[in-house]
């Protein structure tokens, strides 16, 4: 079995290790490029959202590289992402590819189905104990990757020489990629922390603080959101983003979202009193949370035609007015160009700067 999986941020390193550990051949998905999106947009429905198109493009590219099975996640709606699996499978079949998608639904929705799919992944002859240990190890690596990415964005606005932190991060990815056993991963984690901390910093700066919210895929995949966080970091802006793959797994996959994210949902309740699918409710709650934490502004990232985020966008002006925090929404689709985003970003930063000066006196 030649397994592939969607490309989401830097998580591919952890999944590659896990699949190889299980004894399959991992086909590492290439980073989404112009070609990926073009391929996806050619065969996807016109108004499908950009994650759908990127994923479809990724599958097509990995099929070219020899993959025959894909692993992805399902969902229970009302976000369309839960239906991706069915649609992707049908479209790929219609194109004549012999490609099988294994879609993992959240375990709470159907335990039996979940266990059946887990068993289809578990190699014969491997004990459950080893299998679970391998998954845990993969998760460790995922956590390490998330932590390093977090550290990079945290340190970026303070770096003395532009681009040093990003360089250090690339090194870090290599170190993590090389670590194979649980001990090695733990050691690598320490080494990575040091590598990033070693970048010369100027802590006297007081950067603008921006929170990044929105739909999980466009927030997590830098290749789709034009490396927004890196771009902002190199402009000297401190960014914090609301979603990480590991935090999402803990709050939404292992326990049901309405328990795992109760605090953020409660924050949203004065403005939106119902889970509307995707990350709509979270987006509202997180704006409130960032406002309370004293952030200067919030950027909402969303795929074009994403209904939950459009609903959130409709409510955002009221939240923004009542909580006193500027919010900019960027809708991303295959037509969005980096120049347009950059212009809007610069204008938004100017606004935030002026606001801060006014507040100061």
């Amino acid at each position, binding site marked *: 079995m030649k397994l592939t999986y969607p490309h989401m941020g830097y998580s591919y390193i952890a999944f590659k290790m896990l699949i190889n550990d299980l004894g399959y051949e991992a086909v590492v998905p290439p980073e989404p490029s112009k070609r990926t999106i073009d391929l996806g947009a050619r065969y996807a*429905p*016109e*108004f*499908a*959202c950009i994650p*759908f198109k990127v994923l479809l493009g990724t599958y097509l590219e990995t099929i070219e590289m020899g993959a025959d099975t894909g692993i992805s996640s*399902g969902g*229970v*709606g*009302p*976000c*369309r992402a*839960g*239906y991706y*699996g*069915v*649609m992707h499978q*049908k*479209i790929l079949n*219609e194109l004549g590819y012999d490609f099988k998608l294994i879609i993992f639904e959240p375990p709470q*929705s159907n335990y039996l189905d979940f266990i059946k799919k887990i068993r289809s992944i578990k190699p014969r002859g491997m004990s459950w104990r080893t299998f679970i240990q391998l998954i845990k190890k993969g998760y460790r690596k995922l956590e390490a990757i998330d932590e390093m990415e977090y550290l990079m964005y945290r340190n970026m606005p303070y770096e003395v020489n532009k681009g040093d932190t990003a360089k250090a991060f690339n090194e870090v990815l290599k170190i993590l990629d090389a670590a194979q056993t649980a001990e090695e991963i733990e050691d690598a984690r320490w080494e990575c922390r040091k590598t990033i901390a070693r970048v010369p910093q100027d802590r006297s700066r007081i950067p603008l603080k921006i929170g990044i919210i929105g739909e999980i895929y466009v927030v997590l995949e830098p290749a789709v959101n034009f490396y927004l966080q890196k771009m902002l970091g190199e402009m000297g802006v401190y960014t914090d983003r609301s979603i990480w793959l590991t935090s999402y797994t803990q709050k939404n996959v292992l326990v049901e979202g309405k328990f795992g994210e109760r605090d953020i949902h409660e924050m949203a309740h004065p*403005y*939106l*009193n*119902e*889970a*509307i*699918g*995707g990350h*709509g409710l979270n987006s509202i709650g997180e704006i409130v949370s960032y406002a309370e934490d004293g952030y200067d502004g919030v950027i909402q990232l969303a795929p*074009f*035609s*994403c*209904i*939950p985020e*459009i*609903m959130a*966008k*409709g*409510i*955002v*002006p*009221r*939240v923004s007015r009542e909580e006193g925090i500027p919010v900019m929404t960027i*809708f991303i689709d295959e037509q969005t160009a980096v120049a347009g985003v950059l212009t809007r970003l610069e204008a938004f930063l100017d606004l935030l700067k002026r606001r801060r000066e006014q507040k100061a006196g």
Partner: protein
Amino acid sequence: MPVRVGIPHYLGYFSFYPLWKTFFEEIGLEVITSPPTNQQILNAGVAEAVNDACIPIKLYHGHVMEIKDQVDLLFVPRFVKVRKLGTETFCPKFLALPDLLRASIGNLPELLDTRVDLTRGRFELFRIAREIGERFGVAPARISRAYIIACRALRRYRGLMFKGAPAEEALACLETDSKAVVQNKQGELSIAVLGYPYLIYDNFINMDLIKRLRSFGARVFTAEMVSPRKLLREAKNMPKQMFWYYSNRAMHAAYYYLNRMRVDGIIHVTAFACGPDAMLDRLMEMESRKWGRMPFLTLSLDEETGTGGVETRLEAFIDMLKRRKVVPL
């Protein structure tokens, strides 16, 4: 003076209006409904609603703008679930509707944003009715009576729709208590028109689609003309149910008209940039192709759609169907 409750003439209206109206009137409220969609409502909606929204959301805003100053209370139910089928719920716009209105329209009257989740228990609808009734201090016996009469009205309405009367005609029949004159008997072609009730039955936004098709000499079939049980039986054709009530209904109806009762063609009416329809439309298209090459037309509607464009496309589609009938493939 009785409390005036306003019902926007859109979205859930086409499926549930007789229930609401009868119930409110029976418990002694005055019901004010916005007029059928017109250009002014469309313009007001486009001006008020969030600009990335689909046309149904904009139209709903327009209807609210139209009556918000004439009423004490606006009935904007929050539809969550009306039946148990997989993880089915409603399109996010139904889920967020009251909150969205509060955020985007100023000077709103109070909203009666009843949460409708009928999967919570067998008597959930009655519980909701009682909750609303008690809010206005109506006696329990009167609420029960109103509830029963309202349910009967909804059943009659659905019966009329089942026989083929479009929403407006069915409502007119209910109003005058007359029998429906259904002009669906004659016609050489039969066409299934599928999609959301608020697109198929709103004669302004779809430019009299049903009437137009009938004038071309076609019999029109919709999802409302299949009994719910038969619709549900088609659910097994899908590997996984969709998450949206109306989308599932449309998809099940598509399966019904594909394998149980062959029609000559299927028209899918969709709103421009509708999220769920991106999936639904492609699924329908693929299934139509698979189940013996059923002719399939997607009619996309938005605020810019002109009559001419729709007419041309329909004519071409009908011509194609007629030719296909003469020369079987």
